[in-house]
Structures are given as structure tokens and as C-alpha cells.
């Protein structure tokens, strides 16, 4: 069933870096954190959002959550316009979409017990008639996150748990509201390698059993190879390429994607690949280059790239690339 659960249209979010000063004048400088994002997400689908720092992925997450007001564009969840929600509407929306964060050590309030943490969302939304019922729901969420026996965990405090266990508590806290969409912002980058797979596998399992859609934000393409249905590559506030996982990994279209794939280290010493190492660093989102925003660092840029801002081109049915060098299928 491919019912669309989320539709994002030309989403923009701008921050003010510098305001003109009363005394000294000066120009206003804006940070174009996200500058026109388009994609859709189906029910039960996993979309991996990949990009380096400065690409706007965290801002995108916050905007989708309604924690930042968009500066332009639309977000449609289940067909309803999120951007026009009032406070009550937003609160209702928050039950449907939940977020998991990167740092398991900072995501949990050290003065709250695990029970308090997991039942907090229920309290905020007035779910669960009494303490007993809330406790029951919390236990179920903890067990679904793989923490058994849950009763033992309820009375503990975050500092008594390991990184992996904490991350599971965070997931339980998100599950307890029975959301339809989970936004996972780099959920495993701060965990040891031998533990990462656990958490990813947990998310995969939840997707299967509860038909939750997942937007998995990461800078590490390697971890999502088997878990994501589609991959979207972000650069400087835009999605430059989006398509099914195996297509992106085997037949990348955008020069940036190609470069990224070529430099990700592979644990196989006999494999010597040609690495495309880009020069310089991602520019500041305040001064976005003209034309194609990638052109200053692009190894195959031509004159036209400095002038024209490319739009999406279909290289195959679901595979879109925003690059002038790519021709439609």
C-alpha cells in the first residue's frame, strides 16, 4: 500500500544572521538553511536523508516537526496543511510525528526516572486515565524497544544505563504515542560500531510491525544500505538527488553523490577505488553560489552551471537528479 503520508513542497527556512545595526547600518544577512525541498513519503517507507554538515538536514527535521516555522513552502501530512495549524492542531500533529535525537546522553533528563521519561508524552497529551494505565503503556513501549523486563528499567535513572539502552529509552518515549512517522536524526553516530546495528535493526522491526514511516537522517551512507527504501542526498539546503536505495548506490547520477560514494571507506583492503575528493569545504549557507549551488566544487562543472539552477530530471521512474549534466531517461 503506497498511500502518501507526507508531502513536502518547496520548503524553505531562512534564519537571520546579522541585522542592520541602528548605529552602524550594514546589510541584513540571511542564512538559507533549507532553500526549496521537495519530496514525498509513503506509509511504512524508510527514507534516508544523507548530507554533510551545513546541508540543512537538522533544520529540515526541526521544520517538519513544527519546531521551526517555515519561511516558505508547504508541508502536507495525511493531506492536511501543517503550516497552517494553530496550537491545538500542532499538538495533535505531534502525536503523529515523533523525533529521535543523536546524543543518547543529552536526550534524557538526568533528574527524571525512565518511567517519568516514557510517560511524559502521555501526560502532556492527556492520554491514559490514571497512573496505572500510563505505566502499562510505558511498559509496552519499553518492551517493544527491546528493554525487557521493562519493570526493572522503570525505576532507574539515565546515568545507570549504557548508550545503547538510553537510545532505546528515547525510542520507547517516541513510540508511546503511537506515531505514524519517526524522524531519526543521526540516532547511531554516537554509539559504538558493535551496537549500531541493534538500533537500526530495531527501527527496521518497528517499521515492519507497526507500519511506521521513518526519515533517517545521517551523514553515513554505509549504515543505511540495507535499511532504507529510498535515499535523498542533500547539499546546501536542497535535495540534489533522490531515488531507490540500490539505484543511488549503484548508479549515482549527481556528481556530489558520486564523490561521496567514492570516498566512504570500505573495509576491504583489496578494493582500490578511484576516489573523487572534492576541494575545499561546503560554503556558508549565507553566501549561496549562483546558478547550481554545487558548481564551485564540482569536478565536471561547465559554464552553464554558473548561471542556471538545475531542476529535477528523471533518470529513471523514481530516480531524480538535479544536475545539468544529466539527461532524462
Amino acid at each position: 500500500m503506497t498511500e502518501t503520508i507526507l508531502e513536502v513542497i518547496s520548503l524553505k527556512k531562512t534564519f537571520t544572521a546579522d541585522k542592520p545595526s541602528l548605529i552602524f547600518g550594514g546589510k541584513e544577512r540571511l542564512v538559507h538553511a533549507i532553500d526549496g525541498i521537495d519530496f514525498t513519503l509513503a506509509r511504512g517507507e524508510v527514507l534516508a536523508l544523507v548530507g554533510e554538515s551545513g546541508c540543512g538536514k537538522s533544520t529540515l527535521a526541526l521544520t517538519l516537526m513544527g519546531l521551526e516555522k517555515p519561511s516558505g513552502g508547504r508541508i502536507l501530512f495525511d493531506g492536511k496543511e501543517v503550516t497552517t495549524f494553530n496550537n491545538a492542531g500542532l499538538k495533535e500533529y505531534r502525536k503523529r510525528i515523533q523525533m529521535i535525537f543523536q546524543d543518547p546522553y543529552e536526550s534524557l533528563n538526568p533528574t527524571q526516572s525512565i518511567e517519568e521519561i516514557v510517560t511524559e508524552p502521555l501526560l502532556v497529551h492527556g492520554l491514559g486515565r490514571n497512573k496505572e494505565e500510563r505505566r502499562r503503556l510505558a511498559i509496552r513501549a519499553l518492551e517493544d524497544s527491546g528493554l525487557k523486563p521493562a519493570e526493572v528499567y522503570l525505576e532507574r535513572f539515565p546515568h545507570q544505563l549504557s548508550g545503547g539502552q538510553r537510545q532505546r529509552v528515547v525510542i520507547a518515549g517516541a513510540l508511546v504515542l503511537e506515531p505514524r512517522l519517526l524522524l531519526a536524526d543521526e540516532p547511531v553516530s554516537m554509539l559504538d560500531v558493535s551496537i549500531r546495528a541493534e538500533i537500526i535493526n530495531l527501527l527496521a522491526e518497528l517499521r515492519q510491525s507497526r507500519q511506521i514511516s521513518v526519515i533517517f537522517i545521517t551523514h553515513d551512507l554505509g549504515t543505511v544500505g540495507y535499511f532504507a527504501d529510498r535515499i535523498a542526498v542533500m547539499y546546501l539546503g536542497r535535495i540534489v538527488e533522490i531515488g531507490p536505495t540500490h539505484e543511488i548506490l549503484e548508479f549515482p547520477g549527481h556528481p556530489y553523490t558520486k564523490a561521496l560514494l567514492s570516498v566512504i571507506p570500505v573495509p576491504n583492503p583489496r578494493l582500490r577505488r578511484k576516489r573523487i575528493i572534492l576541494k575545499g569545504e561546503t560554503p556558508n549557507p549565507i553566501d549561496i553560489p549562483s546558478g547550481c549551488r554545487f558548481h564551485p566544487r564540482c569536478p565536471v562543472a561547465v559554464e552553464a552551471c554558473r548561471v542556471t539552477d538545475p531542476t529535477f530530471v528523471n533518470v529513471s521512474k523514481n530516480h531524480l537528479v538535479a544536475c545539468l549534466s544529466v539527461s532524462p531517461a
Partner: protein
Amino acid sequence: MAISVTLETLPAKRTPFQNFWRTFRKNKMGVIGLVFLVLIILVAIFAPWIAPYDPYSSVGISAKDVYQPPSPEHPLGTDDAGKDELSLFVYGSRVSLTVGFFASFIAIAIGGSVGISAGYFGGRTETILMRFNDIMLVIPDLALMVVIIALTKPSLWNIILVIGLLGWTFTSRIVRSQTLAVKSKKYVLRARAIGAGSWHIVNNHILPLVLPLLVVNAVLVISISILNESALSFLGLGDPTLISWGQMLNYAFARGAMSSGAWWALVVPGFGIVWVVLALTLLGQGLEQVFNPRLETHHLTARKKTSFPEPAVPSGRPQLSPPPLLTVRNLSIEYKISENSAARAVDNVSLTLRKGEMLGLVGESGCGKTTLMLGLLRLLPAAGSIVGGSIDFDGHDLISLSDAEMMDVRWKGISIIFQGAMNALNPVRTVGDQVAEAIKQHDSNISGDAMASQVAELLDLVGIAPERKDDFPHQYSGGMRQRAMIAMALACDPQIVIADEPTTALDVMIQAQILELLSSLRERLGLSIILVTHDLGVVAEMCDSVLVMYGGVLAEYASVDQVYNSPQHPYTRELLKAFPNLANPEKKLSSIPGYPPRLDNLPAGCRFAPRCTLAIERCELELPEIKEISEKHYVGCHLLDVS
């Protein structure tokens, strides 16, 4: 694939308050302060029963009682009006403590509210509140208090109000900073993401985290209020109908205690003030140490002279020619955890490094790889010490060198690159300065010009424009800072460079740039590099040999080919299975149940046994020996025992 954790493995339940009390109990300063404070509060409460006379009445006093030295009837002497000093002292405590507590209550309430509001709501609210705060902060407190009370009536409530209403400025600043710090934490973001309102967030998330700070600050404010009250009373602005210690000193000063030689009139009330303020100060220091534990050892803490370790056990390898640049044999490093116990952070690790070789040191958190590297350079913190083995570098045994000789080897023989994202560079000195410092340290006769040109050359070598040598580290991006560290590490032409997680916090493209740089430098300069990392992919692409560490011991050590294509140790195998491989992206990643061992809780036998699916009984009892199972392929595992 859920994890069940049995009851025994989780630590006992303990609320944060119980945690606090356990720690506080052990803090001598805090406990002494608390005891002193409670004592004086009891004196104040039970004043009528403790004081031998009633200092408010003049019954039975005559002129001859004025300024009498201590005697059996008046153990602390009498004052200028003939009243008993001891009784005055006891009753005086009431006023001083009352003013102190009430005034600071007002100050803390205002300061806390202002601080939290400014910090939480931000924007215009914050600007207005903080600007007002800044103004009030700058105006000298005591002077203003003096003026206000002089112009109004010096009554007890007036004094309490004035001290309270002017005393909040310092608190609000601190509370605001803390609120801002807490607000940026992810759990506050999570609360907002759940849909919690401001009131809920402030109550459940901000306030509990600000409270410890507020308590410490409250103690400080109380002591300042008491000092202020006594100063005001001393200046003649105290409530004339009440006895306070400051008031007593006012009378003593103005009514000739000094010229009469009545030292007791000066000492007794002063002693009271010092008692209370000192008690509060000690309590405050104690609380601060509990809430903000600061490790009171640092990088320059003197090390105790350790006895030299036992002679190295030769590993039985024939010497090949030419001999390796670095040979580490059976190195063991211990950390002191408490008075009587130490933990083996590194246990019996051996490795060799030839000229031009790149060794990858791989392991997860707590495996001891950084400790091992610090040990090589003898940069261990005071709690760590080498307890066994030898380190042979270019013909010298590094362990037996004196401190001065070791300082020569550092940087010139072996240099190290730390994770540049952290504070590895001094933020208040220019980058060029710090690079030059390394050069000058090992070549003290170098001229200024020669040094400057070398710095420029080094920066150019790593791809940094030479003009940027006068910039400060915070003006560099993360990738540039790492390059600067590399330039600095090469300043003295070392033979070995240790790169400790050089790219962990960097983006994947920047990481590629840095690794490419290291690789090309290695070729050009003939460097030997030890690359410490948890990233198996990086090691595969760059290194010649690999040493896998787990729980402080050597798990597997071989050429990169052998380790990746025929791993023998169960941990190595599992780790490779858990590591994503873009060449085979659809492969499901596995994980290793459980978590790496903690230093203070190491298993008795093989360190990996608790998580190893192939463990046999022997694995839980005995630490495996490191054996060479094939040409230059070392593994420490009982399952491969040739016998």
C-alpha cells in the same frame, strides 16, 4: 532481536537525591560547614535558654559594669552599657540570621525568576531584563543601600527589603546562563517535540536542572547578606531597637572600646559573624564540589616516582634486518581508581613499526588505544603508570629515559595529533605562534626569520594559506584546524606521527581530504604513522598492518590483508560483520550483544568472553596468551590454541 538484561547486571536503583547525599556525606568541607551552620542556628533558636542574662533589659546594671573583662559572672565580658557580652552574642545571632535568610530569600526568588524568564523566553524579554540587570549590577551595592536606608527609616524590614531587592543581580546572571545551557540540551527539544508547553518544560526540565546551581548560589547570597547587614549596622544604619552583631560592633567602635582596651567587645561579635559566614562558605564550597565535581588532577600534576617495571619478556621473534623503528613489548599500563585498587587499562600489548609503515590501531570505546598511545610518549595522567614491558624507539628504551631526555624525544622523534575538534589548540594564541613554538622548542638557536619561513612552509604543506598563520583557532573551520595540527606535528621532522582519531568529528569529504593528505605526506617524507581509529574502513584503505584491541588487550595483530580476509579472533570477525560495507550494501548488519567492559569491572578471563558466542569454560577463567598462529599474525584466543 531484543536484549534482555537480567536484574543483577543493572546497578541498584538510586534517586538523584540519594546520589547527592552519598557524595555530599564524603565531602569534609561541606559537612563541617553544615554542622557549624546548624549549631549557630540552634543557638539562635534557643537563645532565651542559652543566654545567662536578658540583654534587652537594663535591670541590675550599674556604671561599674561598663567594659568589664571576662569573669565568672560574665564569661565574655561586658559592653559599653554594662550588658553581658555572651547574652548579647546569643541574641545577636537571631537578627543576623533572620536578615540573612529573609533577604536572600527575596533576592533568590527575584534573581531566579528573572534569570529563568530571560533565559527561557529570550528575545526582547531577555534583552530588557538583562540590560536592566547589567545596570543594577554595576551600581555599587553597599553605597546604594547606605543611601536608601539613610534616607528612610532604619528598621529591620527595611534592611531586609533593601538587601533583598538589591541582591538579586548576581543570581539572575548565573541562572540565565544555566537556563540557556539547559535549554539547548536535547531533552528540552524533545519535550517541545512531544508538544509540551512552556510551563511544563520550565517546571519539569529547566527548574530541576537549575536548582543545584541556585542552592549553591543561595548559600553565597546568604553569606553576603549577613556581611551586608553587619556592615550597615556598623555604619549606624541598623535597627536601633534590635541587637545584632554589627550593631554591637558599631557601639564598640563609637563608644571607645578600643581606647578602653576592651578587646572582648570587638572579638565576640566579630567571631559570630565569621562563624556564620565561614560555615556558609564551607557549605557552599562543599556543595559546589558535589554538583560540579572538578577533577583535581590535571595534565601537570606531578607523578609519583614509579619503580621501573620488570624486565621485558622477550617475545621470541627473531630480529629481522633492518630492525624496526619502534618495538613495544608486553606493555602494561595501570590506572589508579582509588587508594587501594588499580585497573589494567592496557595489558601486555606488543607491536612493531617499521620506517614508512602505517599501523592501524582499532578498537571501540574503552579499549585502551588512546591510553596506549599516551603511554608511548609518557604523557599519561598522574593516575596512570606503566607497570610492565618495554618501549624501544630508535635504539633507546623510552621507559628508562629521564624526564628531560623524554622531553627531547617528544615531538622530535614521535609527535601526536589529537582530535582537532576539541581544544587541542590554545584558543588565545595564534596558530602560527603555536607551530613556531614547536620548532623553537627543539631548535633553540633558530633565527626569527628561519622560523617564520619554516612555519609558512609547513602551513603550505598541509594546504593552509600562509597568511592565516596570524589567525586564532576559533577562526579556522574544523577541517582546517586538523590540518594545522598536522602541520604542527610535522614541525620537527619526526620519524613517527601518532594520529589519534584525526577525523572522527569531521564530515566524510573533509575526512577524505585529511586522510589523503596524511597518505601523501607519508610518501613524501617517509613517515611512519600509527592511526588510532574505530573506523574499519579507513584502516582498510590506508594501513599496512592492523592491531585490534579489546578491553585493554591485544585481540588480533596482523597485516591488513590477513585481518580483513582471514580474521581469527571472534571479536574481529564480529566487528567486521557489524561494520557497513558499501561494496555490499544490502547485507544486513549484525551487532554484538552486550557492551564493552568497563575498566573497573574487567572480567576474570578473556575480556571478550561475556559477549563471545563461541566461549568455552576456559575463556571465563584464564586470560589467553598472545600466540603467533601464522607468519606475523598474532591472536589472543583460547580457541586457536595449537595444543
